[in-house]
């Protein structure tokens, strides 16, 4: 195990100690203890950056986990995973710092929960981007879904938080399951779970019938996670989470896990026509849908949520366009497509910086004024100058204006879209012509909602009477994190090539392996001014048309389009969920009658039918008494007594005699074990019977008098048939099994235990050795069940009086 293995585990390990830290040092904000965690990870990951201009050194360490299933905890660092790891840890530092000032250290605020979930998420996300094994990746992937849902539901007393948490959980986990199925198909085709191993044999499996289903299933996982249309509906509702969480999970890192997966698997699926169309198509549509929806929002956080949806679509579509490079191979038109990948990687980084800062700024506004409604806000420029400055930078970058980094990546995006339209990669060039059109329209709307955010909040008339709080500038601690992010927006806007050599080129190398000549690497140069070309004209068009729309915003606000806020597609989710619940209740209502005798009827009928069917169709009913051992007279006596006692039970009309008769049966069975020389079983049976008597006596106190019930003869007859049927079938199975073993002498498995119990496990009592050694895991899980049942008994009995609320 290397140090790198510990990086994703570190936050989990620290999370164990959070509750203790929280309790022990109550006066110190728990966040301070956790600040070093992302810092250490960030500094550790920095060492992999190729500062000196050398080619990127890929690192891989393997730690075997379940070798028989090809599951290994393999960590792998290439440009792509390094980019993500740095984003996760770097923004993690800022988010933890911000949260210290954002969530007050109050009595009723479960800070320890918050930080446990946050650390869990950080570790899981690092695990997703660093692991090479698909199963390990899946486990971490689901952990991010889980921690995300827990964080959205952090203020669980709010109805909307619970709704958002459930929604995000259902959608992302459903996608995750689909993805797991896709991974399994990949394993079936290649025989390995290692991503690098699969990519190596990519060209051999492209013709496999499982190839397309695997692609679609994996994309389902990536699209649900990255909030692509029509799965995007969970993201706006996830905004109920505390804002550091929205900034961290729901804009900068977790929602990009889907993008990571698409980028990671581009070497495998890239070059396929289906991959190109699906990823690009869904991405572009999401881009458009998100930016149009964002204009309708009145809540600042709502605007940012839909803006995130739209920007995720943008990055996704770029990856889709870039994948066409594989279609061309090493020479040909591939450079036209690699631009798209460059834009994707660059925008991924830029989006994390400007969107992260904007989320934090929005929360500052909410914190200081008490509202995020743009209809109530206004004129905050003079009151909150620092917040205003940071916002201008973030929003200008989001709208794609120079000299910020958003401008650069948006220009590259236009270039990629234009290239895709001019080159005939796959059949359907006419369709590709609309790529730049959609890109342009979406950018206009992006400009409009950016302008709305900025001007409605900071300019115009200040309306103090509509604000719940008296507005003033935020404390310095809350301003540090967004200010750091905003300065990165400027810095990398001015010097984008600092990123180019260190991180973008290695990341492109990871997404597009084999597309540079051996020994060469991608060489990119990002610059602001590239002459008067189509991209620049498109940007100018965006600015002018966008400004024109914004100036006529009053007209837009009167339309029905602006009145609604909720996404239309929520209808499908809400009604689907309702239908699922009522459908499940209907199905349950038919079979779950609450009567034990009905359940027994179902079970035994099923048993008779299945066993009987199998016995008859396989023709295995044989009875052979020739090899049976001599039966001692005791046995006849015991069996006769047991039968008598059993038959008598239904005819007893009082409870006490019935219990006594049951006890008789139990003790007789124990006696049977004694006669058959099974002391362990006999002892256990005796003890269980003894304890049961006490238990029955206790329960007896609560039971009503046994009622004289009268049943229809048909009902009685059915029960009689079923009970006789069970007896017959079980007896037949036992006899046939015996006859089979006499006819085909097979050595019973007990021989193995008899021979090896002492040699392998050092015990002479085989029963005990099997329990604690050979089948130790069974025993462990059985006592686990015992423990759970014990707790269930306590919960059922002790909390039943409180009407279900206490549970």
């Amino acid at each position, binding site marked *: 195990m290397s140090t790198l293995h510990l990086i994703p585990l570190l936050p989990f390990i620290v999370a164990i100690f959070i509750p203790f830290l929280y309790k022990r040092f109550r006066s110190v904000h728990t966040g301070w203890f956790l600040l070093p965690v992302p810092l250490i990870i960030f500094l550790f990951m920095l060492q992999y950056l190729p500062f000196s201009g050398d080619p990127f050194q890929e690192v891989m360490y393997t730690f075997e986990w379940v070798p028989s299933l090809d599951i290994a905890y393999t960590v792998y660092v290439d440009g792509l995973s390094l980019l993500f790891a740095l984003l996760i840890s770097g923004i993690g530092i800022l988010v933890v710092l911000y949260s210290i000032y954002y969530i007050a250290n109050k009595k009723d605020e479960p800070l320890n929960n918050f930080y446990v979930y946050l650390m869990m998420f950080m570790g899981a996300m690092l695990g997703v981007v660093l692991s090479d094994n698909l199963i390990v990746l899946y486990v971490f992937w689901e952990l991010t879904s889980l921690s995300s849902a827990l964080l959205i539901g952090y203020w669980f007393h709010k109805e909307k938080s619970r709704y958002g948490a459930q929604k995000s959980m259902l959608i992302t986990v459903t996608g995750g399951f689909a993805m797991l199925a896709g991974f399994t198909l990949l394993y079936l085709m290649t025989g390995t779970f290692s991503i690098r191993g699969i990519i190596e044999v990519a060209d051999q499996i492209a013709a496999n019938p499982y190839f397309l289903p695997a692609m679609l299933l994996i994309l389902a996982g990536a699209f649900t996670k990255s909030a692509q249309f029509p799965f995007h509906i969970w993201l706006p509702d996830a905004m109920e989470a505390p804002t550091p969480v929205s900034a961290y999970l729901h804009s900068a890192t977790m929602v990009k896990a889907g993008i990571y997966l698409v980028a990671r698997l581009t070497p495998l699926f890239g070059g396929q026509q289906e991959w190109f169309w699906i990823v690009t198509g869904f991405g572009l549509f999401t881009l458009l849908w998100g930016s149009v929806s964002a204009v309708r929002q009145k809540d600042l956080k709502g605007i940012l949520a839909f803006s995130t949806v739209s920007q995720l679509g943008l990055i996704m579509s770029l990856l889709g366009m870039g994948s066409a490079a594989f279609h061309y191979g090493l020479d040909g038109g591939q450079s036209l497509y690699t631009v798209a990948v460059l834009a994707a990687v660059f925008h991924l980084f830029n989006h994390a910086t400007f969107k992260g800062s904007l989320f934090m700024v929005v929360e500052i506004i909410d914190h200081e004024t008490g509202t995020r409604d743009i209809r109530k806000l206004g004129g905050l420029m003079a009151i909150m100058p620092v917040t205003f400055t940071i916002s201008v930078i973030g929003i200008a970058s989001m709208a794609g204006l120079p000299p910020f980094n958003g401008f650069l990546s948006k220009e590259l995006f236009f270039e990629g879209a234009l290239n895709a339209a001019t080159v005939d990669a796959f059949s359907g060039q006419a369709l590709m012509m609309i790529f730049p059109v959609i890109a342009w329209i979406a950018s206009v709307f992006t400009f409009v909602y950016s302008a709305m955010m900025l001007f409605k909040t900071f300019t115009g008339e200040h309306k103090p009477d509509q604000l719940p709080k008296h507005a003033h500038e935020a404390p310095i601690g809350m301003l540090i994190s967004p200010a750091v992010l905003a300065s990165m927006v400027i810095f990398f806007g001015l010097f984008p090539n600092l990123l180019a050599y260190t991180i973008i080129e290695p990341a492109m190398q990871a997404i597009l392996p084999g597309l540079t000549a051996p020994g060469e690497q991608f060489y990119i140069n990002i610059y602001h001014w590239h002459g008067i070309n189509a991209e620049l004209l498109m940007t100018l068009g965006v600015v002018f048309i966008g400004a024109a729309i914004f100036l006529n915003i009053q007209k837009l606000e009167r339309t029905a389009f602006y009145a609604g806020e909720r996404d239309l597609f929520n209808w499908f989710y809400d009604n689907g969920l309702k239908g699922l619940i009522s459908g499940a209740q209907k199905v349950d209502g038919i079979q779950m009658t609450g009567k034990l005798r009905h359940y027994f009827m179902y079970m035994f009928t099923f048993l008779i039918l299945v066993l009987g069917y199998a016995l008859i169709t396989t023709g295995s009913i044989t009875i052979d008494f020739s090899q049976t051992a001599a039966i001692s007279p005791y046995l006849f006596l015991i069996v006769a007594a047991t039968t008598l006692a059993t038959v008598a039970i239904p005819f007893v009309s009082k409870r006490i005699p019935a219990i006594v008769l049951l006890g008789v049966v139990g003790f007789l069975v124990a006696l049977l074990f004694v006669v058959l020389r099974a*002391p*362990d079983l006999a*002892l*256990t049976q005796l*003890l*269980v019977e*003894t*304890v049961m008597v*006490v*238990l029955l006596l*206790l*329960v007896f106190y*609560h039971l009503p008098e046994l009622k004289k019930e009268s049943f229809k003869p048909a009902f009685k007859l059915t029960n009689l048939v079923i009970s006789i049927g069970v007896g017959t079938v079980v007896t037949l199975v036992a006899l046939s099994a015996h006859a089979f073993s006499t006819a085909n002498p097979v050595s019973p498995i007990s021989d193995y235990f008899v021979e090896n119990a002492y040699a392998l*496990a*050092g*015990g*002479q*009592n085989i*029963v*005990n*050795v099997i*329990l*604690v*050694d050979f089948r*130790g*895991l069974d*025993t*462990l899980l059985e*006592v*686990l069940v*015992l*423990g759970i*049942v*014990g*707790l269930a*008994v*306590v919960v059922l*009995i*002790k909390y*039943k*009086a409180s009407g279900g609320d206490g549970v």
Partner: protein
Amino acid sequence: MMNNPIQLHVITRIVAFIILAFSVFLFFAGHNNPGGGFIGGLMTASALVLLYLSFDLKTIKRVIPFNYERIIAAGLLIAIVTGIVGMFFGFPYLTQFFEYYNVPILGEIELTSALPFDLGIYLVVVGFTLLTILTIAEDDS
């Protein structure tokens, strides 16, 4: 009912400890003779149940102030952790180890890692049985 079940008290005082002693014997005998954690646990539980039956709940609770939920948890932890220890030395989960030692007076004895595992089983069984019985017994609604 008897108001002063003196015979029961006297007999229980003696018998309960014989059963307890026997249960300890059964627990340790388990690996080579009939017995083990499960049986030993049931035996201990029945001894304790006998105590609860002949005296009243309050008295015994004062004498044996166990929290049976915690006993279950402790048992599970012991059983799980025993299995993990071997993993640190590169063995699969739940690998069992045993060794024979010669101790003065006692002669040759065997130490196995199955013993702590069995102890976990023992504790869970005791905890579960008493937790269930006592919870139902205390429920008077």
